[in-house]
């Protein structure tokens, strides 16, 4: 167990509603440490429109970059010709000699490798793939040039459907491959014995849709070669500047010391900005070649048509249960449409590898088998979107649970309660060796059922008329901040280890925190300041977070996997704790006290009734060293520490979503009437930020459930190129969402906090689908695919009607 620091009244969180924690003693300052609902420091900047994004950066002599992209999904590129007179403004693959394509190999056996060219030279493998780059003083002029490039492509049949891509006779996507799959992973344990004598067996086919992540700010970069420093500086809208730096150096053949990546304010990531882009490699190569700053800003069409996608899964899943509702086993074959190339650094296989290991969710079972194939198709690569594979597996698993419940005549909450990991079993190792650190899952279920008032809603559901009602549940867990052992096991070419942070007291008593993760909506400028306050007693207003710059921060794999609150938070606490000891030594000398008697808090170091300000300690160290104790720590008031959790298996937050829906059976419309989320993020650093994460994620999950879908036609052409075609959830679609907190501390993390950043996005498709199916059950119809569009609902009703009439 980590040593937990003493916490003041008001900061203490227990397994009760942290949101309702008392506001603190009337005479003490308002809580600002761990557990405080501190308003976000960064919001002053953001809400006033004063954020500085890549698109705000303008450098002298900068040119704008636009691309000619492949108009076809699959083809042989015979030739590309620059427009007459534009030899120096348009660039083809041959102009980037020496620049390597992007390669992200999984370490798992059987992986088939792909190389994504920076500019295509002989073959194109998805619509939107880069063929030519054009520069001009304005984006419009660059687009004029790009569209004037003449290309000659012999089309090949497109792999547009992952369920057909491995058929005999399908064109093979990459040279040397044996079939169109990057990798297949499988897990099997005890299936045959477990299913003997099962009272209920349900077999289902489920699909989730391909999505675009649609952050408000798209990708973008400005690349500039500093000849003086002999350094390439890339400003990029990225979640992982250090990883981009490593990848960029590899592609360009530079030493990492010659590359600096700066992520300024970033307008949302969600996973979309966890990638090394061919566009930024190209911009960087051109900046090197031309000696001028080169800027590329992704527009919305590029985002929708050419940017990396996510989420497209297919499941053939069978659930087995005993008559009393005990879940005996799950048997599943899953496909993930991984697109044409393995994206750096997560690879084409993270998502599918995750499917096999996390499908069981929060349930115990006796037997399990799952295979998952990362299928290669003529679509853009995939990236892990908020929730990664969890959204899909939760959808598959929770629909199977409802199907089993219906088969056995049990209420959905009953079959769940029967099979959830019980609190007394914690810590619990599940059938795929996932280590559940803590939690009370049945309680979350009970509280969600009560809060939605499931029984009353069921009783009140209309039995006739065009508007039918249903209720649905989904319960799931979110592994966050998992480390070396887990990612090494998934084979991805970026395995996180220790996370570092540097804490530096400035001569005037302020604190600089340097972290290698990046904040792009998560509120880290605030939560990490709260952690500094917790450990160093410093006013969060005096804490400056330095992040997003490889030249100024420790190496980190970046912001993803719900890891920052735990990992960067733990690292900041460790660095501040070390710094606190050094502060105490100096303060003790100034106070003529024993270091052991010195406590720090509220910006002061105290010994008995005497105190000095942190600013006095800092001033002494930096500017009046004649007053320092003889044994002062020579490393000064700057401390770097590394951190990892007690076990690197990850924190397990979890949630139960409960939703009430109304289905208009004439139009197929689904309206969300009430939405309850009972979630457990362990100790919350800032409950208000946790709420924000959960709300935002839930809205994205509702998008997955009801709206978002990037469809492709048989030629591999994307069927949405604007937000008029690609439907995002809007305010009017979102019901009031009620969040109920539980707060079971994790024994693995510094303060008991758990990663919670993705949770909200995981549950909605499953909960809403179960509610829709509840509403449609009397009509004999059910949905099994995402999104649940009105057309899909009407088709399900029509099919049920046809069946009933037959």
């Amino acid at each position, binding site marked *: 167990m980590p040593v937990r620091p003493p916490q003041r009244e008001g900061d203490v969180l227990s397994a009760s509603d942290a949101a309702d924690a008392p506001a603190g003693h009337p005479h003490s300052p308002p809580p600002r440490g761990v557990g405080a609902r501190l308003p976000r420091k960064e919001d002053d900047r953001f809400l006033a429109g004063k954020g500085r994004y890549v698109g705000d950066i303008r450098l002298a002599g900068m040119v704008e970059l636009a691309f000619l992209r492949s108009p076809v999904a699959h083809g042989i590129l015979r030739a590309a010709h620059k427009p007459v007179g534009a030899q120096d403004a348009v660039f083809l693959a041959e102009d980037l000699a020496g620049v390597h394509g992007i390669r992200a190999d999984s370490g798992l056996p059987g992986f088939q490798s792909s190389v994504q060219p920076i500019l295509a030279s002989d073959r194109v493998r998805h619509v939107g793939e880069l063929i030519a780059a054009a520069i001009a003083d*304005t*984006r*419009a002029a660059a*687009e*004029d040039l790009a*569209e004037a490039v003449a290309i000659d492509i012999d089309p090949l049949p497109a792999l547009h459907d992952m369920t057909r891509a491995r058929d005999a006779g399908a064109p093979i996507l990459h040279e040397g491959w044996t079939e169109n799959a990057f990798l297949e992973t499988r897990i099997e344990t005890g299936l045959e014995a477990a299913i003997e004598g099962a009272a209920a067996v349900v077999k289902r086919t489920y699909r989730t849709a391909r999505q675009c992540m649609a952050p408000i700010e798209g990708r973008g970069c400005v690349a500039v070669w500093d000849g003086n420093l002999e350094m390439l500086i890339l400003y990029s809208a990225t979640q992982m500047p250090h990883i981009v730096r490593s990848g960029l150096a590899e592609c360009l053949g530079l030493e990492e010391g010659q590359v600096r990546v700066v992520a300024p304010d970033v307008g949302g990531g969600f996973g979309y900005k966890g990638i090394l882009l061919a566009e930024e490699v190209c911009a960087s190569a051109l900046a090197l070649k031309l000696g001028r700053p080169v800027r590329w800003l992704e*527009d*919305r*069409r590029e985002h929708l048509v050419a940017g990396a996608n996510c989420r497209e899964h297919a499941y053939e899943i069978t659930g087995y249960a005993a008559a009393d509702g005990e879940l005996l086993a799950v048997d599943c074959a899953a496909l993930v449409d991984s697109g044409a190339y393995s994206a750096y650094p997560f690879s084409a296989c993270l998502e599918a590898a995750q499917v096999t290991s996390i499908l069981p969710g929060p349930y115990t079972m006796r037997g399990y088998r799952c295979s998952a194939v990362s299928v290669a198709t003529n679509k853009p690569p995939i990236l892990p979107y908020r929730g990664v594979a969890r959204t899909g597996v939760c959808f598959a698993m929770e629909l199977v649970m409802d199907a089993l419940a219906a088969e056995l005549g049990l209420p959905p909450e009953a079959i769940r309660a029967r099979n959830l990991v019980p609190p007394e079993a914690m810590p619990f190792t599940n059938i795929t060796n996932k280590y559940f650190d803590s939690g009370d899952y049945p309680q979350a279920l009970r509280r969600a059922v009560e809060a939605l008032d499931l029984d009353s809603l069921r009783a009140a559901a209309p039995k006739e008329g065009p508007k039918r009602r249903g209720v649905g549940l989904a319960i799931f867990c979110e592994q966050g901040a998992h480390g070396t052992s887990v990612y090494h096991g998934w084979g991805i070419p970026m395995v996180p280890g220790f996370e570092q942070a540097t804490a530096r007291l400035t001569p005037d008593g302020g604190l600089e925190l340097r972290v290698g993760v990046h904040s792009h909506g998560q509120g880290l400028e605030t939560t990490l300041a709260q952690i500094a306050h917790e450990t160093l007693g410093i006013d969060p207003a005096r804490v400056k977070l330095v992040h997003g710059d490889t030249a100024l921060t420790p190496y980190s794999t970046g912001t993803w996997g719900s890891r920052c609150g735990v990992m960067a938070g733990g690292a900041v606490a460790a660095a501040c704790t070390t710094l606190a000891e050094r502060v105490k030594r100096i303060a003790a000398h100034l106070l003529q006290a024993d270091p052991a008697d010195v406590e720090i808090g509220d910006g002061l170091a105290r010994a008995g009734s005497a105190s000095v300000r942190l600013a006095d300690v800092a001033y002494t160290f930096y500017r009046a060293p004649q007053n320092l104790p003889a044994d002062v720590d020579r490393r000064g008031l700057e401390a770097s520490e590394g951190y990892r959790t007690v076990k690197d298996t990850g924190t397990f937050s979890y949630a139960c979503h409960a939703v009430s829906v109304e289905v208009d059976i*004439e*139009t197929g*419309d689904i309206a969300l009437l009430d939405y309850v989320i009972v979630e457990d993020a362990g100790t919350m650093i800032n409950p208000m930020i946790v709420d924000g994460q959960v709300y935002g994620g839930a809205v994205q999950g509702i998008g997955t459930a009801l*709206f978002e879908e990037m469809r492709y036609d048989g030629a591999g052409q994307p069927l949405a*190129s*604007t937000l*008029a075609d690609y*439907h995002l959830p*809007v305010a*009017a*679609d979102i019901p009031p969402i009620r969040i109920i907190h539980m707060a079971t501390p994790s024994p693995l993390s510094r303060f008991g906090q758990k990663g919670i950043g993705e949770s909200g996005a995981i549950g909605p498709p499953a909960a809403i689908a179960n509610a829709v199916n509840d509403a449609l059950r009397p009509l004999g119809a059910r949905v099994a695919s995402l999104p649940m*569009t*009105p057309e899909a609902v*009407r088709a399900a009703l029509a099919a049920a009607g046809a069946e009933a009439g037959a």
Partner: protein
Amino acid sequence: MKPAPFAYRPATSLADAQRALAADADAKLSAGNQSLGPMLNLRLARPGALIDIAGLAELRAVTDSGGAVRIGAGFTHAEIEDGEAPDPTLGWLRAAAGAIAHRAVRNRGTLGGSLAHADPAADWVIVMAGLGANLVLAGTNGERVVPADAFVTGPFETVLRADEMIVAVEIAKPSPGARWGYWKYTRQVGEFAKASATVLDDPAAGRQRCALGALGGAPVVLADGAGLIEGRVDPDGAVRAALAGRVADPQLHVVALRRALAAAKQAEAAQ
């Protein structure tokens, strides 16, 4: 997503705009630019020139002839929604305007621009056809008046000649006690409709009209409006007969008509 180069010609008057339009076959009119703008940016539309007619005084004229009102085509949806443009109906135009797209679109999009663009799913296309309004078109040979239900000829196609523009919409004043129902099915707030229907019940004026919109082309005025409104004709059969061969699955249009009929009935109950 930047437009291909084009010339920009702000018109100084209606006559100036008409001259410019007649002189340049490659020019397009632009008012609110809410439909054309995205098409320009996607390079789906590549006019050589844009003639900007936003705010022309002649397109903001209002003429009351007693039985009908002519409303200039240049009013924005927001002006109609907010009551800053006249609504000769019993508030029906204001309500319809308020349901067009999003407020940002309504702030700039214009009545005439939306009609001339002739998106089959657009609100004014079905509403004006349903009201039995007339469109006033002006070209080099002067003005002509075309019934709104005969204006759209296909998706994004109208009877407008190359030199013509819509200058006004002429709407008959309904009788006191007339009723109206407009119902459209959109997947999300602000979206173009997937099905729409209007019901005008003004027996005192001899106008009982039921119309269907969002059909992928011109709206359809159903044959027996009075029969539908008075409950003598089954909406399901009427819609299916009218749309046979035009729409593969008319279910949503059946729903739209039923709900528009119900809305008109409820309007009566509310009075």
